[in-house]
């Protein structure tokens, strides 16, 4: 088992995870695992290390393997470090029809990285993803919870520019995403 002792969550996050378990019947707290992993990822630089997953296991009273199984199944959990700005470009049919390949090529050229790579300065990670449900506003890319739609290459440049001096990692959720019970 890895050393999860050095891993800490903010009291708010821990409280939120505990609060999330109230949504399920007694003994079914495992259901809170998916949201808890999102919270953990948001708090730990956008990715889930083994100690972080172990900490989640501890908080939810689960076996670590139960957490690894789940974390490695879903594509939104990063099991390796990512850049501050995680760019997810949709590449499935509708987006491809409307020029997603050009968007990817453009980003690759501009940042000097390939799909799946992170820039040397740790600022950007480029990831191509499957359909994000933005087919009518294709092509599109997602950064954190924001959908950037109807992309043109100029628009892409502007978006990348916005993230140039980012100090925090892009995340899928805000502190107030989940309702507290």
């Amino acid at each position, binding site marked *: 088992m890895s050393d999860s002792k050095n891993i800490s969550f903010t009291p708010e996050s821990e409280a939120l995870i505990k609060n999330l378990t109230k949504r399920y019947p007694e003994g079914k707290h495992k259901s809170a695992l998916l949201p808890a992993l999102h919270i953990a990822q948001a708090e730990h630089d956008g990715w889930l290390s083994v100690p972080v997953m172990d900490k989640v296991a501890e908080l939810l009273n689960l076996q670590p393997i*139960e957490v690894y199984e789940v974390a490695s199944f879903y594509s939104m959990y990063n099991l390796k470090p990512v850049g501050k700005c995680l760019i997810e470009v949709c590449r499935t*049919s509708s987006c491809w029809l409307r020029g997603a390949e050009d968007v990817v090529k453009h980003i690759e050229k501009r940042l000097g990285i390939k799909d799946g790579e992170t820039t040397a300065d740790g600022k950007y990670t480029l990831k191509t993803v499957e*359909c994000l449900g933005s087919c*009518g506003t294709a092509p599109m890319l997602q950064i954190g919870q924001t959908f950037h739609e109807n992309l043109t290459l100029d628009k892409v440049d502007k978006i990348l520019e916005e993230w140039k001096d980012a100090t925090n990692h892009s995340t*899928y959720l805000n502190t107030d995403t989940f309702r507290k019970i």
Partner: protein
Amino acid sequence: MGRKLLLENDHIEGIHSYELYRKNGGYRSVEKALKTMTPDAVVEEVKKSGLRGRGGAGFPTGMKWSFLAKPEGVPRYLVCNADESEPGTFKDRYLMERIPHLLIEGMITSSYALGANTGYIYVRGEYFYIIKILEKAISEAYANGWLGKNILGTGYNLDMHVQCGAGAYICGEETALLESLEGKRGNPRIKPPFPAVKGLWECPTVVNNVETIAAVVPIVNDGGEAYAAIGIGKSTGTKLISASGHIKKPGVYEIELGISVEEFIYSDEYCGGILNDKKLKAVVAGGSSVPILPADLILKTANGEKRLMTYESLADGGFAAGTMLGSGGFIVMDESTSIVKNLHTFARFYHHESCGQCSPCREGTGWMEKILHKILDGHGTLADVDLLWDIQRKIEGNTICPLGDAAAWPVASAIRHFRSEFEAYVNNRQSIPDVKYYFHCNNLDAAAAYSSL
């Protein structure tokens, strides 16, 4: 203009807020159902409406509800499938973003009908901003007495929660969704037992798509018969269609089931015709899983009848010459489109999304993607095309869940209808051969002229 039932108030600025939603007749169905109807009466209205599951399978909702087991002392659940991930489909996202309270209202009315005291809305993780919208709407519903204990003083209790996914197409399959909701890997369960008997935490559960649940609202408000009066035959009511690809006006459209495909593609009310007035080459009518059809077959059936936007008409001709309405993900491709390349994006998608439980899907989806990649790279042979055909044939029907079929059908239909394009890739190493499949139909008139040929 076709009638709108779900998006009737979509034009109202700020309809996402509780106040405006309520002011425009929102939550009437809850009042009507809880105060004047028995749960069984609500189920009866849904049966009468002929409503069919809007997620893709098209199973009659009333019948699905009536299968729900009701053992004493065991809780029942209503789970909303908002894991919309079928490529080409974005109608649920639109609905939840624009009119979140319609879904909440539908959930309350449906839960009452099913005798469920807890409901979950499982939203795909990528839609996190939607989760926030729904969470706010749920808070508002609690604050205004539509959720919680003793709703409207009727003694009916209902709690509702949003559950987030984390990136897995397979969780749109209802048993995989339930596994995921239980905090596990999204592996589809082996059926039977079906969720109606053993679903969430082994309790009887109904899983319905967002649009299906939303449709319960107008059904209860105006009666099942009024709903069934719209549409043709067993395709009743309205359907949200997500239109994308090479069209002038991509977006979500609510159509009365029964309008013609031609009208949908070419009229200004809907898609507005092909982008840049190019020729139509092919359409994927119901999300990536359904068979792709060339222009002539999507506009007219093999018998020469006008193809309509209904479950039956789109399926006319079986898989040889027809397709499916599916989730209503309507992807249009113009003459410049490489069918093989488009198919590769689908194959890559299914490969990426296979859960890996059963061998035909786990291994076959990756194999098909690799072969398509090879063909696109100019290294394919005619034997590869036959091999693709054989692989899809051996996946179809032999897997635990429908993902195997969903991966097989696009491949089968692309080869069936566009074989010459595959052969051109193999023989000439060129991407777009001179295809004889499509017809020049830039607008309604041209299409009509074609139809009269």
